[in-house]
Each structure stands twice: as structure tokens, then as C-alpha cells.
């Protein structure tokens, strides 16, 4: 196995059970492995792991759990690809602007995690809620926010989503039910619980999705929220984007029990681990979790195994991991490359069409940057506005 694969295996609690086996381990997640003892790709295993956890916990019937959702239509796949490309281009441009010292403060990028985010948001309706993290650009773009106002906000401009009061880490678009990126790791869990109660009390069929990382799974808020969501059967999907590092700390050293999805067992809810670099795998699993929530069957935890190419923040020297590891991931598991190949193989897109998608994303981000740079700065006195509805 290459180093990346080793890293993947160490990030889950139980090593593959044995050659060619689909045996259920005594606890933890079920893995499918190849004849060589290498995981065959997590997409084939998620149903089994899901099924197994469900059977263990009686959270739902195995038949429901194993039910395959309808395959995505080609147009939908193209839309997902477009979104992933837009996010990649947007974030790379943010990195450039930050390096040019045009973006103040600090920024957290999720380049490399696009499949996880776009696959998760693919299952959501426009009236569903999301709560994002400090690493939130992708979530916000995936839920439909406008890159123009995001870029303006990152640049500290008056025309930004938050009029320059939030910055890159606090972008919100309430018109799209994006309840905001949050600077406190694990700060989103209690908020999504409230959205869940609100949905129940208003008797709508909306769903709330909270994004978090492996680091946040160790906050007490995670436990409280999982328990409360399960107790009240709230329509919530917990999406853990396990990018293997909580700031500088490897998940393999910080997450007891090895997996985060496995913690679902304690709350009697489904927990699924999926390949976070395969957008279709993520979309399928999350769709199932969203359907469950929408149908009143309660919360689920989805853990996507993903990877960020950039540091915890721009400028992070990343002494906690090797350049080889990052390169390896980029070369073997890049979510956009993988999806591009799938789309080409399935004949959904041609090379030319793919080129056009990249060009369109570039143009859209160029326009966002132009808008942001040309926008006025806020008047200093505006710092006193927007505190209260009724001051």
C-alpha cells in the first residue's frame, strides 16, 4: 500500500478483516477488502457498514438501510462537477489574493475536500438548513451562495455578505438558509439542534445539515447534539468531513475508537463512513441520510474520508505531515480528477465540455474578484450598525 492508503486505514478503527472477506467485525465498521488485503474502495462497503450499524442499533430496518437511492441523472452529475470546479477555482483564487495581502486576517481552505461537500449538499433542497465551519467556503458555495458577495466579504468590503463584519470565516446567506460559517470548532452542533426543533415545531419537512471535522467530533457539543437529535428524532444529518487533521493533530492520534461514524452506535442512530473523494459515493450515502431525516426517521452521522491539500490556515508550515503525503493524495485521490474520469468514461462529458466548465468557473470567479476589488470599503462608522434589530 502506498502511504496515503496506509493513512486511510489508520484513520479507521479496525483494520480490514481479512483477504476477500466481507465479514462483520465484532465492533466497528465493516470493510470490504481485495484479495491482496487492500480496501477495495469504500463505496462498495458503505451499505454494508450502514446495514451493520443499523442492525446493531435497531435504528431502522435493514431493508430501509440497504435500499439504494435512485442513480443520479447525468445533468445532476454535471451540476455537481460544475460546483466542485467552481469551489476549487474560488479557493485557489482566495489563496492568491491572500498571498497578495489583499485578503486580511486569515483564511482556511478546503481544497481537496470538494467531493465531500458537494456530494453532501447535492441531497439538500434549497429550503434545508446548513451550518458550516471555519473552513466553510465550499459548504456555502455548494448550498448556492453567490461567489461575488463571498469574495467581497473576504476582502472586507461593504458589498460582502456580512458588510465586511464577518470575513472569510463567518460568511452566511440567510436567504439560502445558510446559517453561517462558524469560527468555533464544534459551535455548529447546538445550532443545528435548534433548527431541528424549529422544523419539528413548524411541522415542515425540511432537513438540517451540520458540517464538522474530525477535530469537532471531540467537542462535548457533538455528544450533546447527537444525543438530543436522537432522543427527539430531529431531522438532522451530521456530516463529518474527516480530513485527517484537526489543525495540526492527526485524527489517528486524537479520535478514540478510530472512527467518528462509529460513535453513532452509542446513540442508536446510523453511522456511515464513505469515500470523501468520490462525490457519487458521498451523494448516495448522504441522500439516504437526508431521506431518513425528511421522513421523520431521525438523525444520521455520515463520515466522509477526505483530505485537505492546504494547511489548517493559509501560511501554515505544516510540520505535522510530509509533502509526499499531500502529493500522493493529489495524484491518486483528487476528487475532481476522479469525477472527471468517471464523467468521461460514462460519456456524460467530453474533454472539450470539461474545458468549458473550467473556463466558465474561472470567468465567474474573475467576475467575483473584480466585483470584490472594485467594491467600496465600509465607512468606519458602519462598525456600529447591525448589532440589534431594535437598538
Amino acid at each position, binding site marked *: 500500500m502506498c502511504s496515503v492508503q496506509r493513512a486511510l486505514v489508520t484513520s479507521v478503527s479496525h483494520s480490514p478483516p481479512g483477504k476477500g472477506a466481507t465479514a462483520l467485525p465484532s465492533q466497528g465498521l465493516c470493510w470490504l477488502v481485495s484479495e491482496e488485503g487492500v480496501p477495495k474502495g469504500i463505496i462498495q462497503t458503505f451499505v454494508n457498514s450502514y446495514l451493520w450499524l443499523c442492525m446493531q442499533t435497531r435504528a431502522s430496518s435493514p431493508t430501509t438501510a440497504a435500499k439504494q437511492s435512485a442513480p443520479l441523472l447525468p445533468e445532476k452529475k454535471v451540476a455537481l462537477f460544475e460546483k466542485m470546479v467552481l469551489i476549487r477555482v474560488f479557493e485557489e483564487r482566495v489563496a492568491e489574493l491572500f498571498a497578495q495581502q489583499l485578503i486580511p486576517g486569515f483564511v482556511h481552505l478546503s481544497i481537496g475536500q470538494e467531493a465531500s461537500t458537494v456530494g453532501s449538499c447535492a441531497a439538500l433542497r434549497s429550503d434545508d438548513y446548513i451550518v458550516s465551519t471555519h473552513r466553510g467556503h465550499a459548504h456555502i458555495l455548494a448550498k448556492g451562495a453567490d461567489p461575488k458577495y463571498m469574495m467581497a466579504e473576504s476582502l472586507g468590503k461593504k458589498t460582502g455578505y*456580512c458588510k465586511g463584519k464577518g470575513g472569510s470565516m463567518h460568511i452566511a446567506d440567510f436567504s439560502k438558509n445558510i446559517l453561517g460559517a462558524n469560527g468555533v470548532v464544534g459551535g455548529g452542533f447546538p445550532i443545528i439542534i435548534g433548527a431541528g426543533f424549529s422544523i419539528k415545531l413548524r411541522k415542515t419537512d425540511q432537513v438540517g445539515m451540520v458540517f464538522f471535522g474530525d477535530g469537532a467530533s471531540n467537542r462535548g457539543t457533538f455528544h450533546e447534539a447527537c444525543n438530543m437529535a436522537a432522543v427527539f428524532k430531529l431531522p438532522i444529518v451530521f456530516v463529518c468531513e474527516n480530513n485527517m487533521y484537526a489543525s495540526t493533530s492527526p485524527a489517528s492520534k486524537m479520535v478514540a475508537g478510530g472512527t467518528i461514524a462509529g460513535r453513532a452506535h452509542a446513540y442508536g442512530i446510523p453511522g456511515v463512513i464513505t469515500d470523501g473523494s468520490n462525490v457519487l459515493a458521498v451523494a448516495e450515502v448522504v441522500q439516504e441520510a437526508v431521506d431518513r431525516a425528511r421522513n421523520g426517521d431521525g438523525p444520521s452521522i455520515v463520515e466522509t474520508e477526505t483530505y485537505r491539500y492546504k494547511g489548517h490556515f493559509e501560511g501554515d508550515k505544516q510540520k505535522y505531515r510530509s509533502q509526499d503525503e499531500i502529493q500522493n493524495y493529489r495524484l491518486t485521490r483528487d476528487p475532481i480528477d476522479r469525477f472527471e474520469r468517471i464523467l468521461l468514461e460514462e460519456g456524460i462529458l467530453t474533454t472539450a465540455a470539461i474545458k468549458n466548465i473550467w473556463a466558465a468557473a474561472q470567468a465567474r470567479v474573475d467576475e467575483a474578484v473584480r466585483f470584490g476589488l472594485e467594491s467600496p470599503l465600509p465607512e468606519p462608522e458602519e462598525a456600529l450598525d447591525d448589532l440589534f434589530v431594535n437598538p
Partner: protein
Amino acid sequence: MGVRDLSCSLAMAEALAEEMERDPTVFIIGEDLVAHGGIFGQFRGLPERFPERIIDTPISETSIVGAGIGAALTGMRPIIDMHFADFVTTAMDEIVNQMAKLRYMSGGQAKLPLVLWAPDGAGISAAAQHSQSLESWFIHTPGLKVVAPFEPADVKGLLKSAIRDDDPVIFFQHKRLFRWTGPVAEHHEYLIPLGKAVVKRSGSEVTLLTYSRMTYECLEAARLLAQKGIQAEVIDLRTLKPLDFELIAQSVQKTRHAVVVHEACMTGGFGAEIAARISEELFECLEAPVRRVAAKDVPIPFSPVLEKFVLPQVEDILSAVESVLNYAPHASSARRHRSVHHFSHHSKTSK
């Protein structure tokens, strides 16, 4: 529509019932709300009337407060029951980093119409973790409104206003006032605006600025002062943020002497803020420095004799009044020495 005598508990239950009746988005979330109608009887009758909207949760204060925030962001008007004000410590991130900041950080997009209701205060031997008065933490956090009423009528009128307000309100209610009874209007639109203080007793010689339970002690001190011929004005601030400084200024310009009285400990307490503002804005009116009467700077102890020693008493207020009325900037300054002590009886310190 008449006026009846109600306890603070019943005034609160009435306000909640009226607002829940009026607005289906109002709900209450917290621990142990249903079984006893709240630990102070403040929710009596509500679980039967609004079974879906009184939510008993697991012991998860962080998520209870967070749930209030999330619900407020998505169209509801939650009332978060903090059980005891002391437990806000378990949800400080939610209150300080989320509740107080989400509207501002989002450039005014977010709206958080919620009430965090927190019974505070000492005097019942509840010891250090169930007796605190923590209002200054929240007054010091931009983005929150802070209310601390005394009279049952104010409990009703201010709670109704707080529920209808579109901003987060931290609503403190003193544990020793739940049975404090007074006239309360039956009127469903009985609203007291946030940010308005009230003169509880008029006087011309010294202003006692106070709130919550200490209003009682101040009124008692004013009664005793009157027996000595000293006319103290007592102002119940009711809302601490926004602060009704206009009324404070009117009174201090008249009396030229001010004493701030609160049950929270002295150092860094709200009294310091009020004293500073009076000094900055009304310095030329003052005949003496503003004095503060507050709890001593220790946690609230358990044993009644220790607790009483730590908490401000009527005698402490009398001493402070005496010192401001007899303040002499220079030794030669000839001022009438007015003793407010030597009363034949000790003031009562509890009801």
C-alpha cells in the same frame, strides 16, 4: 380587566401563557419543565395547555442554549430556561460567541428573537454554585440585552416585551422574589418597554440606583432614612442594557448624591459602570463621589451567617448614604454631619 395581586412566579406564568397563546412560534426549552411546572413553579399550567411547546430536554445546557439560538435563527421565538443562572457557564460559547454575535457577524442578516431566562441571586443557602449574580458578564458582551426586574408587574410586562423583542434578551429573575407579591394587570397587552427604569420612591437628597432583589433593601433603607428626615430616591433600573441613563441623570442632578446597590460582587460589577458614567457625565452635579454597595469579593458561602456577611445588607446602604451625605473634600469644609445610623431596630434583611 382588573388588577390582582400575583407572585413573581404567577406573573411569569401568566406572561408566558399569554404570549404562547398569542404567538405559535413561542416555545420553552429546558430541563425539568414539565413534572413540577418548573423548579420555581414558574411554568405552572403551561405543559397542560401547550404540550408540544414545553420541551423537556436531557441535561445538556450547551445544546439547550444552542437550540434556542438555532430555533430563533429559523423563525421561532424560544424561551430558554437556564434552570439556575449559574449554569450559563456551561453555555458561554453559545451565549457569548454565537447568540451575541451572529447578527452582527452576518451583517444584520440573522435575527435572534429569544429570551434566556435565568434565576439568579443568593440568600437561600444554595452555596457558591447556585447563588451567583452574573449580569455584568452579559452587560459586558455587546449584542445582548439584559433585564433584571423586581416587581411582579415588571416581571410580566418586561417578559412579554422581551419575548416580542427581535433581539436576544438575558432575563434574570431573583430566586428570592418568586413569592414576592404585588399588583399585576390582567391586561394581555400589559407591556413594559425594555430600557426604561422606574422611580420606586421619590426623594431629593440621595439617589439609590438598584435592580432586582436589592430594590427591596433600598426601599427598606429609604424608609428608615425618612424616619431620620433624609429623603432618598430609589430607582429600580429594571433593564440593565440598554440602560436608562436619562432617568439616572435626572435624579442625580436633583439629589447630587448617588449610591449604586447590587447583589453581585463589587469588583467589576455593574455598579462600577454606573459610577463611572455618572462621574464622566455628571461630575459637576456631584457633591460626593458615587458609592457602591455590593457583595464582598468571595464566592457565596453556604452557612447562613457567612452568606449574610457577604451579601449587602440594609445597614450597608445606610452607611453608604451617610458617607456620601457627609462627604467633605477638605478637612476644613464645614458640612452638616448627618447620621443615618443609631436606629433603634435593625432593618429586616429578608422577607
